[in-house]
């Protein structure tokens, strides 16, 4: 424990009392200046201040479950406060002590408050009745502290009278109940007795408390010692003392979880002691401030200490568990055990203990995992930094391995794997990075280019150096910096799944960059950043002290959820965040990734995905709308909004007039209509403009609009409206726009502007009206003869060229986007999933495929069951396996003799022809095939031989211009012993099975010639399959048999067709062949075909009895209902007429084989010869001929069969 980790610090006057809130991140501090401060230590803000005490406050305490705070001070008063911000006030004051109050404490379950005072008494108060229930007397000097036992009815007190006393208050519970009834208070206690008086301190005792679980008491005194006492039922005694403080010890606490003691004193130190050994572990010194009080958090590993000029909140150790993620596993350290947690199965097992690694009080700091070697590399800060390299045990059974068994250690402040067999160690003091190999010997020493505090993995051959102000990508081979980014000290580095992006995390910033440190974006957080992990979509998810947040690659970030306590993210998968909590227990948090996925889709312009999200999720909230608006997608935002005003704004912004119109109608306010009119005008949609003008009664603009659109009738209507409104100006306007001269004159006359009316009439040639006007004005022609003659006005209304009044102008491109179509009317029905798998045609095709696949599978399976014929027989070693290679000791240099080629080993190691072929030893391969399977005609096999050979060798040139190395592909890749290596399987049973399937499909499709070729090809391929077990040998033989049967069957049918064509009169032969075809061992699907064909042929030849026999056999195969009907008909027909017209040589009741050359039966007991390879039967006269089925083997040749080198 080299440093105490200060989490928060504040400056104030002397702090004498401190208390942690049990659940919230709040700390109360009692100040010498009379105020009580309430701090949020996580955010670092002062939440509240309570200032009603007069004089110094010495103590504070939170109620364990209610929002109450008790404080006591030099004004002899105990105050109880309501700390809720809405109702914060002093609830009541407890009067009674007659000197300074030293400590106050709420009972953990009863409504009691315990206090002690310089008046030498300890009092217990009922906080409900606000009465003093008991006064404990006995101490003969100031009582400095008094605390309840965490479970039992005991109190421990410390006093300046140099004693620590334990009081039994079990009697108080009964009385407590009765006093609650409002009984009077008790001046002197008769229910509490002193149980033990602990004497041993030589000076006044400042502080004493019980151990949370053990029967122990700790006390701190002015004699500079801390004493530990043990209690039994009957007595209590001093166990030991911790000496080391060189001034008064103010307080000493048991660590709530670890076996530690924390103390502080006026010697300006905080000290940590080992409880079991009573030895000092660590000392934290302050320059000027004496420490007065300590407090520990009831649940978290947090402490607070008050001193002369403020307070500090600190931790004794880092709580971040060391961990490393690899594949689907998390490797982490809990309680100095390396454990592995499987993300998928959730299994969590201990693998290795590091308990002898570094200080026993300190957890390891970092862990680096090497999946190839299954090794871990841990560092610890104790002893100035150590690392240890250990391999994890292979099996998880039995004892957990101890790292000391094979661990390799050394000094170093940071250690990471940089390659499979290399790791780097940073020595901060000497500023050297050592690259070591797995045997822990230094292979390279590097001087980093910057002052380095941390190193991280930086991709191949690189590490990332973290210095105070920059982070550097450093190439280990070249020993130079490749790139540098300015950043506060980087504390953690997280790579994404494909190592293309990396997040560099500092205390308050995250830099997201690519693997060359090219572009990068920066995120600032005011709250401390704790950890992070990449999700599959390339979004970085990170945790701060109180949030889980996300960050997109260009820097947008947002909150996913809030946290009560910090967690350390290890992995993100789908909707699940995997993390470790502060006690290093794996946890998962489920969250809704919709928001960031949506934003990511938006950034990538992946509209399908966005639509899909909109359709399937409930994305609401002002933030997403604001985001969409900000990013320039108001039209999308439109679909999330129901509030009309916002909808209107968005619709205007994205030019969606339809929606704008709708919402404007709902809002119906002049300014809304005006905005709509403006936008519509901009887009040229004059109908909407018209509507908007009408709504706002904007007659002038409306008229002008009608003029512009050439809408004469509307203009005349406007005139009427103007007339109705009694607005002559408007009437005039409209008349002018409409070119309505009479209308204009009539307006002028109506308003009494006769001169203008007269002139207008005059210039437009309307003499009658002009005269009328004169009359109206009471004038004659003579009166106006001084008016100059203006001539005819040439002004006229232009004619309408295009009837635009009903058309809408080509509108401004309003962003008719993907969404306008897809989201029209907000309706999202019929939107397909992003990938569009529901596309009808494609899915149809897929279904067909699936069906085919299924069918194939079924066939294959049935095949295996059905082929229960002759298992691989006569398997013997044909070739002796040669001995191991000669071992020769030879010097390096020119005299080196060539060694043995790997191909030679292959031929030595295997008696199988396939292996010899792969080795290129064709001659021996042919020999083997000849001996084992009687193959004599090899020409058809040449392409197969060459293909197998080509597939087993690769050339590669590691060194420039040298002839390439010939590499050999093995099938047993884990084997490197040359006496066991074997070549790769180029031809496999699976491939052959597939070819067989293809062949039977040809049969079903009646492509007989293709089928015949396919089966012959299968039989050729099967010759080159290298077998490795009895099971495989059996499968192989089954497949050979099956291919043979099909081949015979197809050949018979081909022969039948030939006969029918060449010699139509030979019905007898045709019928026989059709009958034999049904005796080939085919799969049911093909056998049905054979039987149906036979039924047909026999029926046509008028052999109903024969047809009926096949029909009965066909029925056994449970064919389609249609075929069943047909079969029944045939059988019925045979019953009516059981006579066959054509006699054939076919006895189905005596078992027979078919001669594959003549296609005639060889009945049981008749002599026959066999093909040594396919075991097809032949009449004896064909012995020595070439097998006509495959054209490969000699009929009746002696053969040993395929050997079984594995047994």
């Amino acid at each position, binding site marked *: 424990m080299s440093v105490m980790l200060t989490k928060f610090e504040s400056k104030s006057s002397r702090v004498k009392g401190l208390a942690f809130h049990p659940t919230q991140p709040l700390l109360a501090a009692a100040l010498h200046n009379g105020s009580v401060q309430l701090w949020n230590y996580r955010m670092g803000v002062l939440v509240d201040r309570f200032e009603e005490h007069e004089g110094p406050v010495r103590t504070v305490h939170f109620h364990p479950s209610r929002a109450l705070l008790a404080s006591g001070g030099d004004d002899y008063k105990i105050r109880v406060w309501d700390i809720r911000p809405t109702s914060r006030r002093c609830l009541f004051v407890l009067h009674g002590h007659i000197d300074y109050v030293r400590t106050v404490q709420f009972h953990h379950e009863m409504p009691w408050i315990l206090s002690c005072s310089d008046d030498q008494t300890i009092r217990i108060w009922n906080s409900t009745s606000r009465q003093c229930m008991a006064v404990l007397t006995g101490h003969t000097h100031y009582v400095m502290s008094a605390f309840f036992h965490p479970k039992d009815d005991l109190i421990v007190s410390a006093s300046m009278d140099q004693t620590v006393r334990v009081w039994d208050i079990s009697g108080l519970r009964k009385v407590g109940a009765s006093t609650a009834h409002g009984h009077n208070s008790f001046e002197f206690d008769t229910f509490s007795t002193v149980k033990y008086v602990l004497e041993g301190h030589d000076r006044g005792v400042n502080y004493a408390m019980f151990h949370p679980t053990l029967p122990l008491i700790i006390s701190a005194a002015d004699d500079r010692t801390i004493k530990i006492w043990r209690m039994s039922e009957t007595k209590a005694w001093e166990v030991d003392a911790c000496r080391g403080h060189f001034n008064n010890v103010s307080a000493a606490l048991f660590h709530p979880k670890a076996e530690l003691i924390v103390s502080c004193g006026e010697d300006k130190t905080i000290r940590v002691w080992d409880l079991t050994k009573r030895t000092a572990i660590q000392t934290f010194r302050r320059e000027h401030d004496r420490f007065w009080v300590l407090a520990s958090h009831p649940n978290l590993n947090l402490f607070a200490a008050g001193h002369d000029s403020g307070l500090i909140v600190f931790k004794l150790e880092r709580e971040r568990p060391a961990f490393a993620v690899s594949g689907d596993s998390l490797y982490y350290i809990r309680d100095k055990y390396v454990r592995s947690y499987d993300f998928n199965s959730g299994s969590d097992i201990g693998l290795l203990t590091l308990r002898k690694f570094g200080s026993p009080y300190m957890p390891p700091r970092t862990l680096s995992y090497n999946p*190839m070697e299954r090794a871990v590399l841990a560092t610890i800060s104790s002893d100035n930094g150590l690392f240890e390299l250990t391999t994890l045990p292979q099996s998880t059974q039995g004892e957990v391995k101890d790292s000391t068994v094979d661990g390799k250690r050394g000094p170093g402040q940071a250690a990471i794997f940089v*390659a*499979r067999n*290399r790791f780097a160690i940073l020595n901060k003091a000497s500023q050297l990075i050592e*690259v070591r190999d797995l045997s822990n010997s230094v292979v*390279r020493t590097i001087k980093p280019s910057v002052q380095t505090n941390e190193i991280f993995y930086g991709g*191949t*051959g*690189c590490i990332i150096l973290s210095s105070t102000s920059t982070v550097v990508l450093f190439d280990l*081979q*070249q020993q130079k910096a*490749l790139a540098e980014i300015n950043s506060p000290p980087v504390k953690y580095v997280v790579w994404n799944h494909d*190592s293309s992006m990396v997040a560099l995390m500092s205390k308050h910033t995250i830099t997201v960059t690519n*693997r060359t440190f090219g572009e990068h974006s920066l995120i600032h957080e005011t709250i401390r950043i704790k950890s992070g992990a990449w999700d599959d979509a390339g979004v970085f998810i990170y945790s701060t002290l109180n949030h889980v947040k996300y960050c997109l690659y260009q820097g947008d970030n947002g909150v996913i959820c809030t946290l009560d306590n910090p967690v350390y993210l290890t992995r993100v998968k789908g909707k699940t965040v995997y993390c470790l909590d502060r006690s290093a227990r794996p946890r998962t948090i489920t969250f809704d990734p919709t928001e960031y996925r949506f934003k990511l889709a938006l950034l990538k312009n992946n509209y399908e995905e966005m639509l899909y999200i909109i359709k399937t999720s409930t994305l609401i909230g002002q933030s997403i709308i604001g985001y969409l608006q900000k990013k320039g997608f108001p039209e999308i935002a439109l679909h999330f909004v129901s509030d009309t005003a916002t909808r209107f704004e968005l619709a205007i912004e994205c030019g969606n007039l339809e929606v704008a119109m709708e919402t404007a109608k709902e809002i119906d306010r002049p300014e809304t209509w005006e905005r709509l009119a403006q936008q519509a005008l901009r887009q040229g949609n004059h109908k909407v403009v018209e509507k908007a003008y009408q709504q706002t009664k904007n007659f002038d603009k409306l008229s002008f609009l009608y003029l512009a659109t050439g809408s004469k009738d509307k203009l005349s209507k406007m005139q009427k409206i103007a007339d109705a409104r009694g607005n002559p100006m408007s009437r005039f306007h409209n008349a002018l726009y409409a070119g309505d001269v009479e209308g204009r004159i009539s307006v002028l006359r109506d308003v009494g502007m006769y001169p203008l009316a007269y002139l207008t009439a005059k210039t437009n040639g309307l003499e009658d009206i002009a005269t009328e006007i004169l009359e109206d004005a009471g004038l004659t022609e003579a009166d106006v003869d001084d008016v100059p003659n203006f001539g005819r006005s040439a002004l006229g209304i232009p004619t309408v060229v295009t009837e635009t009044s009903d058309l809408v102008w080509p509108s401004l491109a309003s962003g008719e986007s993907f969404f306008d179509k897809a989201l029209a009317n907000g309706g999202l029905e019929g939107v397909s999933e992003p990938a569009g798998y529901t596309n009808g045609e494609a899915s149809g095709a897929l279904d067909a495929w699936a069906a085919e696949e299924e069918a194939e599978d079924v066939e294959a399976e049935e095949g295996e069951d059905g082929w229960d014929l002759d298992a691989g027989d006569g398997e013997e070693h044909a070739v002796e396996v040669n001995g191991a290679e000669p071992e020769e000791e030879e*010097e*390096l240099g*020119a005299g*080196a003799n*060539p*060694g*043995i*080629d790997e191909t030679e080993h292959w031929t030595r190691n295997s008696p199988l022809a396939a292996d010899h072929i792969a080795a*290129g030893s*064709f001659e021996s391969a*042919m020999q083997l095939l*000849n001996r084992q399977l009687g193959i*004599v005609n*090899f*020409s058809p096999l040449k*392409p197969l*031989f*060459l*293909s197998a050979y*080509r*597939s087993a060798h*690769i050339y*590669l*040139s*590691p*060194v*420039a*211009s*040298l*002839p*390439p*190395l*010939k590499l050999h*592909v093995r099938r047993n*890749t884990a084997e490197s012993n040359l006496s066991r290596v074997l070549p*790769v399987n*180029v031809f496999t049973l699976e*491939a052959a099975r*597939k070819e067989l399937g293809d062949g039977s499909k040809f049969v079903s499709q009646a492509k007989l010639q293709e089928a015949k070729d396919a089966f012959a090809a299968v039989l050729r391929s099967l010759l080159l399959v290298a077998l490795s077990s009895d099971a495989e040998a059996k499968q192989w033989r089954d497949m050979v048999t099956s291919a043979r049967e099909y081949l015979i069957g197809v050949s018979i049918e081909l022969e039948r067709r030939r006969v029918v064509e060449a010699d139509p009169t030979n019905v007898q032969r045709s019928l026989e062949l059709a009958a034999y075809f049904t005796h080939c061992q085919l799969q049911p699907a093909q056998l049905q075909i054979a039987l149906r064909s036979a039924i047909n042929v026999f029926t046509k030849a008028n052999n109903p009895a024969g047809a009926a026999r096949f029909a009965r056999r066909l029925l056994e195969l449970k064919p389609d209902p249609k075929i069943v009907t047909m079969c029944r008909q045939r059988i019925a027909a045979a019953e009516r007429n059981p006579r066959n017209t054509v006699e054939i040589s076919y006895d189905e009741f005596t078992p027979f084989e078919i001669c594959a050359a003549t296609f005639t039966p060889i009945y049981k007991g008749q002599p026959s010869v066999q093909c040594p390879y396919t075991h097809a039967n*032949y009449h004896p006269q064909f012995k*020595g*001929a*070439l097998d*006509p089925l495959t054209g490969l083997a*000699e*009929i009746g040749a002696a053969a040993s069969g395929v050997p079984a080198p594995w047994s």
Partner: protein
Amino acid sequence: MDSSELYHTKQLFVLGAYKAVVAQPLPDANSPDYTSALLYQIRSYIALDDTDTALGLIPDGTENVALKAASALARFVAADEDDREPILEELRDLSLALDDDVEGTEREKDLVRVLAGIAFSRAGETEEALETLGSETEDLEAVAVLVQIYLSIHRPDLAKKEFERSKRWAEDDLLLQLIESSIALVTGVDNYNDPLSFYSEQIGNPSLSSTHLLTSRAVTRILRGEVDAAKSDLEESRREHDDEEALGAALVVSGLSGFRAEQDELWEKFVSTYSTHPLAADVAEKADLFDSALANYSVPALPVVA
């Protein structure tokens, strides 16, 4: 210590990114790196079979032994079978003269041996190549050549010995790692983990990209039996640059995945494009072997059916 540009060039050369090497600008002619960088370029052109350009880069009448040796190697690679002997003689003279006082640094003298060794090895003069390179060399390039020669004569034991020896003096050099992985490719030790992680790491290296590395990883993966992974590596590498190595490996992949028609197609392409490649010669030889072995068997007639 090399300058970082030269280092980078060397790294590219070692990892087979010859195109990248020749694409790099040469340093200033007065720079101390000039000759070294020039040599890497020349050697890269030779590796790319562009000997004319390689020869064009060599200054006329140069007295530098390494450049002279490079020129000889370029001519050797380009020459027909019959014209090779005088060039080999030239290289012999050059390497013999190294002990005398000739122009050139120690490093250049080492390079002469390396280039001569390569030429001897190409000519099939394995013994002479091994002798020229010497068993006591402390030049890692020489070790690389030595190791590959040992491997090609099926002596991985000697290759390993040579590697272990050089581990003592060569720092954790990239070339040393390459040598280690080449040995593992041949011996198959540790399930080819060494080459796989070496090539994977180098592919991940941000400061270079080379299709040779992808092809090499594909080859490693084929050897490990991971045919599908190899296939995707090859697709990527062949998209960038299709050479005999990648095509040869693709051939194996298609053969192992059971696509024999595709393999035949690739094979046609291979033989027509790279007729002098050892693979082409090897398979042709095997085809002849097949035909001659056929003679051992007489094929009986098909049965005659009455």
